[in-house]
């Protein structure tokens, strides 16, 4: 708790003020979490972390906040950057903003009661006037993004129009790419010196944690072989967790996702005992991340999330068996593959016999693996 308070004090988050008559004063709450940390020497330690949270659930739209939208990088952007990284042999590093949301500047007056355990003994009736965002505040992610955006632009970087989270810096002929995913920052540069330069600049401005070469981003495992020029992304661990969750950890693997020519019809009533929606949702994240091969099966099965029965459940179990057989499969970018974007587009003619609807599918391939797909 003291550590968190220290971070909050360092950021000059609040000032003790008199309770205003007109403004709403909301509460804060402590949230505790036990974090497992794996150290470089292989030791496991647990750390108890306390976090002071603002009770954003009591905030009222238009009264306490206006806009809350904060952009996050798209998977396609991340994959394209990784493909280019593999193709050009660039450096790929990762950083993390410590106590990220405490960095956001508030543009509106926000007041909070003094948190439990840290009530000022001389002025117990006064309240905190916040200057910086706290966790739990509805507008916190937006404020953090605005601050990072400001900083990166002040460094002379160019925001690229297709994705608001992608920044590009040209410096002495070196390319530096910065990708922001809320508080996770992916740095790509043509040389190590350039990486250190941008890291230094970030360290000076924010309290950052340097994670070195990127290994995991958004639950995607990055395995890189610089000598061979390959970069592989996989979600094996997540796949294992999904199988475990649906009791399919010990199932027999199978080679394909769906039966050939499978026609499913809507069930009259959903069988609520089956965790069908959960299974579709869990597989969806895999599909979006690294598994274009699941796109069609998941697309087809998710048409029935409101009207599923036993046969739909059997179909998704088959998909889970397929996942079991291909857990470590992932996108494999290769230096030797062509770095020209190649698209493919296909449609089936009224493939859904019930509604006569067509399914369109597309993939875009860059550097030996798919970077964008849809079904």
């Amino acid at each position, binding site marked *: 708790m003291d550590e968190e308070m220290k971070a909050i004090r360092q950021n000059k988050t609040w000032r003790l003020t008199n309770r205003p008559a007109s403004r709403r004063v909301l509460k804060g709450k402590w949230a505790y979490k036990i974090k497992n940390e794996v150290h470089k020497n292989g030791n496991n330690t647990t750390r108890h972390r306390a976090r002071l949270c603002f009770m954003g659930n009591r905030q009222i739209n238009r009264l306490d906040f206006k806009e809350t939208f904060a952009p996050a990088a798209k998977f396609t952007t991340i994959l394209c950057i990784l493909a280019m990284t593999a193709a050009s042999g660039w450096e790929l590093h990762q950083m993390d903003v410590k106590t990220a949301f405490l960095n956001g500047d508030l543009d509106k007056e926000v007041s909070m009661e003094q948190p439990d355990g840290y009530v000022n003994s001389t002025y117990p009736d006064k309240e905190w006037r916040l200057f910086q965002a706290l966790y739990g505040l509805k507008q916190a992610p937006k404020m953090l993004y605005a601050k990072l955006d400001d900083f990166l632009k002040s460094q002379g970087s160019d925001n690229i129009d297709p994705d608001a989270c992608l920044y590009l810096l040209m410096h002495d002929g070196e390319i530096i790419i910065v990708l922001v995913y809320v508080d996770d920052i992916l740095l790509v540069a043509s040389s190590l010196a350039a990486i250190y330069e941008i890291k230094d600049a970030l360290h000076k401005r924010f309290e950052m944690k340097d994670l070195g070469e990127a290994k995991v981003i958004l639950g995607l495992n990055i395995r890189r072989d610089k000598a061979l020029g390959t970069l592989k992304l996989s979600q094996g661990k997540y796949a294992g967790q999904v199988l475990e969750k649906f009791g399919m950890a010990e199932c027999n693997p199978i*080679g*394909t996702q*769906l039966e050939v020519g499978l026609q499913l019809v809507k069930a009259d009533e959903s069988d609520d005992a089956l965790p069908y929606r959960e299974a579709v949702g869990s597989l969806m994240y895999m599909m979006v991340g690294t598994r274009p091969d699941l796109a069609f099966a998941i697309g087809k099965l998710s048409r029935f999330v409101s009207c599923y029965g036993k046969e739909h459940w059997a179909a998704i179990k088959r998909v889970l068996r397929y996942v079991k057989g291909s857990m470590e499969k992932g*996108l494999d970018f290769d230096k030797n593959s062509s770095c020209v*974007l190649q698209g493919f587009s296909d449609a089936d003619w009224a493939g859904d016999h019930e509604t006569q609807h067509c399914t369109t599918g597309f993939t875009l391939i860059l550097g030996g693996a*798919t970077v964008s797909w849809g079904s």
Partner: protein
Amino acid sequence: MASQRLRTAISGGPINIKVDNSGCIDFSKKPVEHKRTKHIDIRCHFMREVITSDKVTLEHCATDDMMADPMTNELGKTKHDRHVEALGLR
């Protein structure tokens, strides 16, 4: 400026899309009326625009080489394995 450089670094020209429907390619080049041309979506006009302005080119490919096939069909084992490999999943 920098984004332009990044874009040319990726593709260096129009993006090539492979399609296994030659009727569709012909229609994109020359939209002729036929008794079977109906239900033309607004997206078709978008495609025609990007094709005439050389941002995208269409090219025919055999259905067997169609890498988007696993996105529209449930495939048998042999075809499935080949396509999955081609998608870059290893």
